[in-house]
């Protein structure tokens, strides 16, 4: 295998560099996916039928917690990649663990938020606005869930093998994915919650 040692580990083989490029392309498709969901939401957001509006159900508290933990996790995943580049396995594992923990907290708060909505009678079936809200937030939440499963698997692999061409490559791609989810959340925060609360 031809390796270019001037590059960081995750880019070093041709296969690795192709994978990162391919994942960027995939993120392009993900941007279109979420853009479409946002378009659907912004089309339907004031079509509340007989159900409640966003103004009536949104609460700023849980949303601020979700935003805070997810943004922080984006920072810690950055620290994870930084440690990886320096070849420091132990701090990297710690930062990775904190990232996943913050992701789990985010998910827990989001689930509690959903439960509250449902208890208030704001269900998926109630109105077009609520359908689009649940599907937009749910798609993001499903991505976070998948990210948690992926991250746990990856931590086990790093624990076993340390940083190799394989694990470094996977870690870097995971970090791209995680940052992307953060960016999507910023749009959700702005166009769903802030817009709804105003």
């Amino acid at each position, binding site marked *: *295998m031809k390796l270019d040692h001037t590059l960081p580990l995750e880019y070093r083989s*041709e296969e690795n*560099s*192709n*994978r990162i*490029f*391919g994942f960027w*392309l*995939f993120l*392009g*498709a*993900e941007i*279109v*996916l979420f853009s*479409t*969901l946002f378009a*659907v939401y912004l*089309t*339907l957001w004031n*079509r*509340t*039928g*007989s*159900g409640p509006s966003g103004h009536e159900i949104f609460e700023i508290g849980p949303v601020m917690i979700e935003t805070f933990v997810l943004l922080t996790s984006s920072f810690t995943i950055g620290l994870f990649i930084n440690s990886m580049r320096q070849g420091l396995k132990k701090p990297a594992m710690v930062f990775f663990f904190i990232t996943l923990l913050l992701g789990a907290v985010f998910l827990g708060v989001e689930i509690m938020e959903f439960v509250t909505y449902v208890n208030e009678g704001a269900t*998926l*079936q*109630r*109105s*077009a*606005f*609520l*359908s*689009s809200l*649940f*599907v937009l937030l749910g798609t993001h939440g499903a991505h976070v869930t998948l990210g948690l*499963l*992926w991250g746990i*698997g*990856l931590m*086990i*692999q790093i624990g076993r093998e340390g940083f190799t061409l*394989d694990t470094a490559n*996977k870690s870097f791609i995971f970090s791209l994915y995680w940052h992307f989810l953060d960016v999507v959340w910023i749009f959700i925060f702005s166009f769903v919650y802030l817009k709804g609360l105003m």
Partner: protein
Amino acid sequence: MKWDEFFVTGEPMIYGAMVSIVVASLAILIGLTYFKKWGYLWREWLTTVDHKRIGIMYIISALLMLFRGGVDALLMRAQLAMPENGLLDGQHYNEIFTTHGVIMILFMAMPFIIGLMNVVVPLQIGARDVAFPRLNAVSFWLFFAGAMLFNISFVIGGSPDAGWTAYFPLASLEFSPTVGNNYYSIAIQIAGIGTLMTGVNFIATILKMRAKGMTLMKMPMFTWSVLITCVIILFAFPVLTVALALMMFDRLFGSQFFTMANGGMDMLWANLFWVWGHPEVYIVILPAFGIYSEIISTFSRKNLYGYKSMVWSMVVISLLSFLVWAHHFYTMGHGVMVNGVFSVTTMAIAIPTGVKIFNWLFTMQKGRIEFTTPMLYSLAFIPIFTIGGVTGVMLAMASADYQYHNTMFLVAHFHYVLIPGTVFAVIAGFYYWFPKLFGFRLDERQGKRAFWWIIISFNVTFFPLFFLGLKGMTRRMYTYSESTGFGPLNLLASIGSVGLAIGFILLVYNIYWSFRYAPRDTTGDPWNARTLEWSTHSPVPEYNFAIEPTVKGLDPFWESKKGGHQLYEGKIEEIHMPNNSGQPFILGIIFFFFGFFMVFSWWVPAIIAGIGVVVMLAVRSFERDHGRHIPVKEILETEARLGGEQA
């Protein structure tokens, strides 16, 4: 879901189909066991990650689907052959035109094109495989799982019946209570994910794995068309993913996206569908343009006229393809301004398309044209496609469109675009690249006979529909009274469709006959062609090129044949290749069952299958497979066996 509704009953033709499915499946199982081919099938095909074999599997699936969609078409034409015909009732007619549309576009045209992409693109750019061979196999098996799931609907549970566009509110649970449209939303979703992965894979392949010296503007035109197509796939298919997911939520979980009450908006579906649907049209047409460019240039013995304008016209088409979707429903209530804007963008597409037509004509000018079967299809394409294009501009005029919207005129128009555009192209491409895959040409005399049957019958079938449409016959009507006067032209169209069927039978016979009797081609370059794929052996060895080629300009093989530079410099080294894997196939099966359980809302099995998918992802993540190396000795032996002048 009641159990007595599980199988579709009460219709002799469907009983016949059930019996034939069972008989055919048994015959395949018994045949494989008797000839001891299970191991061969598993090792060489089901687990393969070789782009050429995956391409062949795509093409075989596409031919099967062509048969299925063709039978649907013949049933429709038989029903419409005379007034007040009772062959099919309204419900069955609805199901048949729905499945005909979906199958022909998504499970015939798409896989045929993706099959040719798989076969040709890595060879044209001098690569040994695609960027992600394993993902490529996953793409295929997801497509196959989706296609099979869609096809079983007509015996289990009932076919979708709301048209291939599945407009709401008709496709909602309220008005289409059977599971048919569940199949639509889930089967297409599974296949669509596979297509999206193909898009990612081929963009990465083309941008990262080209031969040394092949800059973007030195790529063969087919590769260019595939690159642009894949960019469209990447940006259009996620919209379909969302649209189908919302449809599924509406039908399975009672959400209110497209409903009539509680704030739902049925037009949202039409918009989302066509935001994907119109680019989809270009996804199936642009690679066809690429195929024609290769063939016309090869058989005119000239380089392609206006290479740069060819590339730029495709780029412009790909951008415009995202800006025209509302022309599919001018009459559905948006204002004058919206209709005006979309009229203009739609007509603008005729400009880059016209550029391409003239480029092909200028390529042929003063060329030494050779009338081979692929060239005949390309020549027939130009005038017939132009008829389709001109009627398209007629339909693009919003105010005039009110006269013939949703009539047979429209049906005639899109068949005049899609059949010469896509179907003739994939047939031409199939004839053209067939010798590269199998080492012999399809018989030319038989090929030309099938060509004339197809070309003449196509026009007999579809030209009358223009007039029927202008006389007021709407599309999707399952019968008509004699007083309408639609009878004679419909009969003519039906006779034409029989001719088309004969043409396709002749084509299949041509393949069969050539497999048995056609003389072998030992040169690897039977057409005296121009691009890199013809510079290696036929059939292509698994590693494609013993030495990676170096390219200096356009049409590198042609230039090197004319005494230009050496394509293969250096000596043979061991070659790194990916290993086969059964995982993509297994993943496809799990997706099939996941989809099936979802269609019938059987939640527990569906959740188990869903977990199965996650487990497969985890297995892949923990796997360490770095492929294998083919030793130099083995390469030298293979090269010598294939007559290797390169070795």
